[in-house]
């Protein structure tokens, strides 16, 4: 196998984020996971970075994206780039002291090109704004931005806490007696965790922290009864970002459902497993596969620990167990399908149904390539394995109207009621 090139030689050089910049530059990050980012941003701040989490969501965001990104490029790229450009042009930030940060996963999907498309879009008006690539594998180098072990560990635990907060929020909010209380509790907990991360005190004491969070959410008064659960799976950005999915979680809650959103850590584990799998499927072993194997082991144990804690110490339902997800994937698709969200989407669909969430929205950007295969392509298989599955695929795109999307989701919801009405009849 060829050695991995340090800096790909066929690419144009990029503006480096230097150590001097770290002192007074503000790093903008796009909106993606509102619950998680509350904590993650503080972790970066604790490392001495100035960070600003963008929440601009006006029509101008889409317009900027449309201007700068190719018509047929996926919606996430369009929104992320649009959000950055809108922010830079807004005057809210000193563009000479601003950097941007974007994640870079690498892989056969065109999503690996987001960072390049962003640089292209910046070329004309903001040629000196550095773009930092955030990845665990360090595809690019920036002397002012380095991943150290402490930062990585903090981020992993930040994600775990984020997943926990999101999961609990979705299980409380649909039932809360006092409107808005769940969000307030979430903000409070995120604040406490952020403070711990900033002061480097107690952040890793997971048992104590889990308990505190679980107690806080358990104390929220809720109405009796059970609402139909609706899972959300799909392309990572559209799945989580309210900007992209037209506030899907809120819509589902308003429609009398309980959203079930699989955690972010599952996606990270999925990425690591893909590296491990590459070695297995293609018969080799190298530094990357070994590193991934170790990272996976560390993180999976933490996930398992958290899930066990939730199950034992509260009435809440934990997120998925990743090994079970892998086992589920094997029933539906090959784990070699690793571009985009790959086998994770069918696995999550199967696992959701198995754990009692038969109703699923698969959210994807219009024309998403991997989703031809892993979402729409496997629906038939999932239906065969789980006839009770009630799945709706929704495409998101700058011009598809909200009415259109919501109408399709409403059909899925109408089917929940019909299925519920038919069940007793079947028994009788």
């Amino acid at each position: 196998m060829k050695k991995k090139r340090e800096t790909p030689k066929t690419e144009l050089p990029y503006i480096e984020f230097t150590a001097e910049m770290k002192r007074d530059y503000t790093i903008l990050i796009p909106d993606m996971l509102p619950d998680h980012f509350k904590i993650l941003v503080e972790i970066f701040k604790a490392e001495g970075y100035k960070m600003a989490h963008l929440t601009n969501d006006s029509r101008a965001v889409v317009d900027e994206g449309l201007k700068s990104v190719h018509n047929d490029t996926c919606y996430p790229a369009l929104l992320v780039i649009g959000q950055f450009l809108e922010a830079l042009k807004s005057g809210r930030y000193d563009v000479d002291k601003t950097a941007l940060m974007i994640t870079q996963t690498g892989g056969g999907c065109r999503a690996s090109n987001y960072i390049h498309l962003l640089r292209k879009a910046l070329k004309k008006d903001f040629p000196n704004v550095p773009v930092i690539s955030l990845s665990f594998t360090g595809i690019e180098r920036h002397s002012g931005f380095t991943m150290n072990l402490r930062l990585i560990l903090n981020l992993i635990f930040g994600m775990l806490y984020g997943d926990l907060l999101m999961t609990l929020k979705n299980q409380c909010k649909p039932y809360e007696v006092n409107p808005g209380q769940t969000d307030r509790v979430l903000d409070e907990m995120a604040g406490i965790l952020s403070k711990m991360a900033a002061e480097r005190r107690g952040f890793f004491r997971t048992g104590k922290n889990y308990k505190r969070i679980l107690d806080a959410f358990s104390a929220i008064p809720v109405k009796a009864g059970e609402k139909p659960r609706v899972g959300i799976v799909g392309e990572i950005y559209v799945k989580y970002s309210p900007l992209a999915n037209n506030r899907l979680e809120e819509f589902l809650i308003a429609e009398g459902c309980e959203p079930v959103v699989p955690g972010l850590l599952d996606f990270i584990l999925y990425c690591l497993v893909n590296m491990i799998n590459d070695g297995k499927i293609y018969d080799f072993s190298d530094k990357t596969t070994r590193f991934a194997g170790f990272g996976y082991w560390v993180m999976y144990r933490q996930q398992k620990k958290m899930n066990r804690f939730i199950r034992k110490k509260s009435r809440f339902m934990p997120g998925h167990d990743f090994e079970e997800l892998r086992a589920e994937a094997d029933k539906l698709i090959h784990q070699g399908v690793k571009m985009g969200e790959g086998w994770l989407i069918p696995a999550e669909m199967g696992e959701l149904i198995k754990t009692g969430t038969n109703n699923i929205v698969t959210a994807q950007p219009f024309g998403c390539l991997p989703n031809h295969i892993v979402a729409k392509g496997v629906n038939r298989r999932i239906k065969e394995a789980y006839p009770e599955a009630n799945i709706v695929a929704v495409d998101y795109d700058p011009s598809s109207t909200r009415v259109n999307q919501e109408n399709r989701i409403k059909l899925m919801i109408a089917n929940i009621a019909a299925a519920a009405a038919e069940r007793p009849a079947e028994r009788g």
Partner: protein
Amino acid sequence: METVYLVGVDVGSTTVKTVVLDEPSHTVLYREYKRHFSKVKEAVLEQLLAVFGKFDGTFKVSLTGSAGLGLSNRAGLGFVQEVFAASLAVKDLYPDTDCAIELGGEDAKILFLTGGVEQRMNGSCAGGTGAFIDQMATLLKVEPSELDALAKKAKTKYPIASRCGVFAKSDIQPLLNQGAAREDVALSIFQAVVDQTVAGLAQGRRIKGNVLFLGGPLHFFESLQRVFVETLALAPGQAVFPELATCFMAYGSALYAKDQPTAAGASIIQRIENAPYSDEILCGPQLFKDEAEYRAFVSAHARADVARREIAAYAGNAYLGVDAGSTTTKLTLIDGDGALLYSYYTDNCGKPLDETAAQLAHLYGLLGDRVRIAGAAVTGYGEELIKAGLRLDHGVVETVAHFKAASAFCPEVDFIMDIGGQDIKCFKIKNGAIDNIMLNEACSSGCGSFIQTFANAMGYDIAAFSKLGLFAEHPVELGSRCTVFMNSSVKQAQKEGATVADISAGLSASVIKNAIYKVIRAASPEDLGENVVVQGGTFYNDAVLRAFEMELGRSVIRPVISGLMGAYGAALYAKEKSTGVSRILTAAELKDFSYKSKFTHCNGCTANCSLTVLNFGEGRRLISGNRCERGQGKTREEILPDLYEFKYDLLLSSVLDQPEKPRLTVGLPLALGFYEQLPFWHAVFYHLNIQTVLSAESNRAFYVKGQHTIPSDTVCYPAKLAHAHILDLLDKGVDVIFYPSQTYNLDEGESDNHYNCPVVAYYPETLAANIEPLNKDNFVYPYLDLNRRSNVIHRIRDSFPALRLTKKEVGAAVDAGYAAYGLYLKRVRDKGAALIEFARKAGKKIAVIAGRPDHIDPEINHGIQKLVASLGMVAVSEDAVSHLASPPPLEVLNQWTYHARLYRAAQYVTTQDDMALIQLVSFGCGIDAVTSDETRRILEAGGKLYTQLKIDEINNLGAVKIRLRSLIAAL
């Protein structure tokens, strides 16, 4: 006790349907079906008032339908999702139904009721609906109802792309222009609707059993019913067309109303009347503040005019220019100084030749003996037809004609934008020559006819409609994408209560945004140039012009003859080239002018192109529809060679050798990656004493066979074709079908990574999951990496456990595979080099048609390389030259093997004076959204033109031809 009535109201995208039921018996007491012309609230009120006036009692009301959602929310009335309403009605009225299909105004739905209940609605990019049929009827200049009558008289069917109206249009327009019978086109439109339902809606499930057909279109169009029954091969009695078809969902909604509270009619009316309009619409800037601002604008643009002369007072030579556009025909006659003597602009009613002939006859009447036509030229879609039919002297490419005309108004012009009825053409001018041409892709054509269709649908003519927008206070912000999307944005705005004026202004702005940001792909308006001339019929619309200037932030030149510029340019061209005499049909000849059209097939090769032969008498005839020049009667030797055909033949011939006594037969689908790896796999199996069986060559009918197993209707055409290839192999009865999944392609070194695109990499998964007869015994798709020899050996051995293959024999076979593959690539390169040398000796230009390996499939490339040859260029493929250059520094990640070749080929082309690059892009290829901008950048940096051809199942090459000719004119 008062009688309680159940009232169901279905508010669709175009109509409102109401049904009143008697509660216990479900007897239909009343029904109504009416278009609402986007006045949703008013239409619902009107129908409910009628109901409440007619029946004495109380009511339970429920709404359904896409436009009913918002209204029911705001009025606090019951609502049921429309597909769900349909299933309630089906269960109540036709419990034996297996499948129900409902085609509505903009939505299409399918319900599978037995064997796994499932409901589906059309995706966000889908034709095959009532709106599609309406749009097509407009194109044929008939009322939708007449379309049915036409189709009944049809003799033959043409393939028409069904996915969206824009595609279908680009198939239909040329058919009409070539003289195809409208009856046949009408029937073909219905077939397209059926195909779309089968492929797009059923998404991999077969429609069978008792099928219920619902909705307006399926009720009103008997031909559509017939085509459905034929295509689905339904036995008599299996197809049910209920009398209640149009109001079916309203019926279901009425059933749902049972659980709604009872209310008096008056209170329901009041609730709807009090329902607020929503405030969710976004508004753009006003076009004109007041009348004074508008007057100043109008007088400023009135200055861009040509000299005119009274034709009655003129004597001497004159020059005729004809612009036979897709929907209109324009004529201009000029004198020796370019002054306009006469002009004419008309809708061609789908008969451009008849229209032009009639107009010419009229013109001769005006000329008398004083004026003599000394030169005549024609441009536009109907160029060949008019030139041949009326014996004009010259045909000229549209872009050249427009450039000529624009230069007459502004000699320094450096940017021309032409928005016509069907297309947007933009070009940059550098050093007095056309430098860069941009045409709208099928998917982004928010052109003039779009505004027109919309105006008509809202009951206005285009002039009145655009006037309305000039002073709109809150122009609606609509998207800037393809018309289908804009359609739904407009509907949404209407539902939210935007006025017609606001929509008119919004449409004008969105047409402009579409042109600037999607077609031209300008990052900012300054990219457009200093001296901009705009033209085309659409710019007669002051609102569009104003929107353009506002977006640009400065004024542009719009000639007063904006819509005639093509014809004016053609006339200037005729004047320039005039020899003093024109061959155009004389007044006397024109009197006897008639022609006969005949449809036939070319037997020159296996493609069997459908030919339209028009015979004008005196041995003059026009053959159209042919891909290559053999249809014109040229022999093989007279036609320029191309590498595409060579590659295709070479690839197919690689499987000719077969073992004599094979121990197994393995089926290989002639699809996607196999278009390059076939020699590899054949050699491997040959050396293992296994016979390989190849699926048949693709064609359109073959594709249709696999259509019902395609789960995603927006995947690229090459992937869709793979389904038919698998089915074919199953028919052939092979022991096993082998189709490896390959995340990685071969590493050719010059890139950052070497992936396959996600579709090529994992398509076997989709096939396995969606083609019913496939199972783990008859379909083997191991994951392997061709860069790792031992991995390949390992996986092959795993794939055929029963054969107990040894490591050694597989190793030898795999080595033979690598050798065969290497040889194939070498022969392609050698042949490419030979063709380049041939071209240089013959003094021909070379076109590097850069695509993917699967683009050599004639059903995918539609014979574009032959068209290139007929235009006098020698066509080679990207892999014939990509090894000759290293990739330039890129702004994107260079991580796909096939696309890395593209960048290298582009880089190489910039070093060769006699080469041009044409990029083939399959519609829906998301990767090419990244590569096309980058390829353009490489070429432009090297001083080359960038030409992109988007290909799909559409096999009409009209637009492709214009683009290629423009390219050649600019070289």
